[in-house]
């Protein structure tokens, strides 16, 4: 592993070590580029993970103070926890479920495809599927996605058996155990899935791809990476020419340091990334860095989600095995005859008993609630994940008075569903119910969205500088050597779990950064 001097301005500083930052770090290091990777969280190993929901939650989650506003139910039930994402080396790739789907062609062109939608800030991506396909292929190979590269699908668990039978009985055709970045057989030095049932808690078998034990050690092996855990970025600094010059951060002892940089890539997930840009305001950039458009923090998307759990006469034991290895894709396309734009996926989902109690109907109590809990082992469950509409007022702003442990304003996350989101969720609840009733569900529970796991769009890509924060390479319109490298680049969200696309964009961005450095353009 390399060590770089704080004054070494030849390094690329990457902020955040998850799907975007961890991948970008490895891709750059493989090309010989020196990288300092700042990560706010601790570095754990697989042995440190807990097969226990609350323990793992306490260990891995980003729990720094955040506030919420808007009409979404999360703001009421989990006012300080808008998102369920991670603060740890590996970021949310430690916690993710592994579903790895490509965006569909039309999802890059939503303004064109869906047309003008009142109350939505729709915009076409400045790139298209064809342009990304070679990079998607590389990402799938890197991550070992099942049903690609000759890798077999995962075996279906009990929860999938219920989903499959119900789905096919009501006529769905595209039903299988998914495209998952979870080894169905040993690959890339990692073993195959042991069907632990604790994908969200950090995979103790290492079968699930995470930058923690793939990209980051590979980058370290090049001798080009210095990973600095427990180092939280506070401010990106710039010179009078508008180029960024370094990053102010708090190290593990709370001491403030400045790492000089040739370029900076921000990959702190869609709440912290815009917050960092906003907290970096100076007299030259009073609205924050990369914010000449005023779009930093706006157009926050969290996918239209919800869950459907159903109770059966006979046991299911849905918690056994891979959490999300099951999918129905028949509703994923754009079919306005359903009464909404865009589409949604239905994916198997299970929560352990502790989290089921917390999330089945947050705040509920009494016999109706406990009766549902009494049937926990007779339940099957699915998660709905669909495209939500970007809205200008949905997003991340700096709180006027609340400060974090470093004295910086905390982020507030504001969210209101668009009518399209509500119509899609309503359709998905009905379809999810139909799937389970087709196999004899005695009761069905429509479960509201959890704190957001898919956080997107707050530094979006745009062709024109006035419409967004960065260009199709993730390079900010305002600062040539400042990049956005996480899901906050997404112009629109698509219906698919975003990690594969984040990794794909990072692979492509690494080529661009290397090219620009070679030309001395940055």
């Amino acid at each position, binding site marked *: 592993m390399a060590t770089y001097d704080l004054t070494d301005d030849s390094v690329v500083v990457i902020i955040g070590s998850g799907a975007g930052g961890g991948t970008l770090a490895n891709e750059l290091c493989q090309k010989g580029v020196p990288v300092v990777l700042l990560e706010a969280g601790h570095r754990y190993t697989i042995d440190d993970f*807990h*097969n*226990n*929901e*609350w323990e793992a939650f306490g260990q891995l989650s980003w729990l720094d103070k955040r506030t919420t506003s808007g009409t979404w139910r999360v703001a009421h039930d989990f006012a300080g926890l808008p998102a369920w994402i991670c603060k740890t080396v590996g970021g949310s790739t430690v916690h993710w479920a592994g579903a790895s789907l490509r965006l569909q062609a039309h999802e890059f062109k939503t303004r064109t495809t869906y047309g003008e939608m009142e109350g939505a800030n729709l915009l076409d991506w400045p790139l298209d599927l064809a342009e990304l396909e070679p990079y998607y292929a590389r990402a799938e190979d890197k991550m070992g996605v099942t049903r690609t590269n000759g890798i*077999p*699908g*995962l*075996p*279906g*668990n*009990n929860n*999938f*058996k*219920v989903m*499959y*039978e119900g789905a096919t009985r009501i006529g769905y055709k595209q*039903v*299988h*155990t998914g495209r998952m970045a979870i080894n*169905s*057989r040993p690959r890339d030095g990692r073993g*195959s*899935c*042991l*069907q*632990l*049932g*604790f994908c969200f808690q950090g995979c*103790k*078998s290492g079968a699930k791809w995470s930058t923690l034990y793939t990209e980051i050690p590979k980058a370290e092996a090049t001798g080009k990476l210095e990973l600095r855990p427990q180092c939280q970025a506070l401010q990106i600094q710039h010179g009078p020419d508008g180029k960024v010059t370094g990053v102010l951060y708090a190290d593990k002892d709370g001491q403030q340091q400045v790492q000089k940089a040739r370029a900076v890539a921000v990959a702190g997930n869609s709440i912290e990334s815009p917050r960092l840009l906003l907290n970096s305001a100076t007299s030259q950039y009073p609205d924050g860095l990369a914010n000449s458009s005023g779009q930093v923090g706006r157009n926050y998307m969290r996918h239209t989600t919800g869950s459907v759990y159903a109770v059966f006469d*006979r*046991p*299911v*034991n849905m*918690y*056994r*095995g*891979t959490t999300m290895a099951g999918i129905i894709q028949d509703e994923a396309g754009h079919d306005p005859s359903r009464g909404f734009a865009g589409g949604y996926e239905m994916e198997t989902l299970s929560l*352990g*008993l*502790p989290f*089921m*109690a*917390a999330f089945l109907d947050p*705040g509920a*109590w*009494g*016999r109706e*609630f*406990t009766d549902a*809990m*009494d049937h*926990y*082992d007779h339940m099957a469950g699915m998660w709905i994940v669909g495209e939500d509409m970007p809205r200008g007022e949905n997003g991340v702003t700096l709180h006027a008075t609340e400060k974090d442990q470093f004295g910086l304003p905390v982020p507030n996350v504001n969210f209101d569903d668009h009518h399209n989101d509500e119509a899609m969720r309503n359709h998905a609840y009905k379809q999810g119910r139909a799937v389970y009733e087709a*196999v004899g569900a005695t009761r069905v529970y429509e479960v509201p969205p959890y704190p957001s796991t898919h956080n997107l769009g707050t530094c979006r890509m745009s062709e024109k500088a006035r419409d967004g924060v960065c260009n199709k390479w993730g390079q900010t319109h305002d600062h040539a050597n400042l990049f956005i490298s996480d899901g906050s680049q997404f112009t629109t969200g698509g219906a698919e779990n975003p990690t594969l696309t984040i990794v794909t964009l990072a692979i492509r961005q690494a080529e661009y950064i290397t090219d620009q450095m070679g030309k001395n353009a940055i």
Partner: protein
Amino acid sequence: MTRKGMNRRQFLQGSALATAAALGSGALAGAARALAAELELSTLDPKTAAGLLVMTRRIYPHDTLADQYYGGVVEALDEAAKADPAVAALLKDGVAGLDLPMEMAFLELSEGNQLKVLTGLAGTPFFQKVRGTAVVALYNNELVWRHFGYEGASFPYGGYLHRGFDDLAWLPQPPEDASPKAE
């Protein structure tokens, strides 16, 4: 949360509470007081503890789950009260307030009237503190998982790969292209 004194509580549960349950709610109140008095509490007084025990049982009623597990919630509330005097006051005053709406001691009310009182208080910080603590302390107790058929940690046993991840037999096996065999 420490689990000291479990044997003692299990003993109590097996005797006093089982008998009390058969006798009806008045006796249950007495048993709740007895169990609450046996909890190893640092901060909460026995009356507050007994009120919280019954309140928690009404909030998350599982008829076949023994009172000792609800006692675990009271212990968690006691920990919170120990850490913060404001919480201690909130709980003490809150339980005292349970006696007011019907002008009768909460513990002596019928189950239906207890529910009525709690429903009237559901939006209060006191109720939310108790409910919010209970939803974690009750359902995160490994000892109650068996009741619900949840098996907890699987890694120490090699996961479910050879322990029933796909043992559901009341539906057909999906075809292999949808669900390949485990390699």
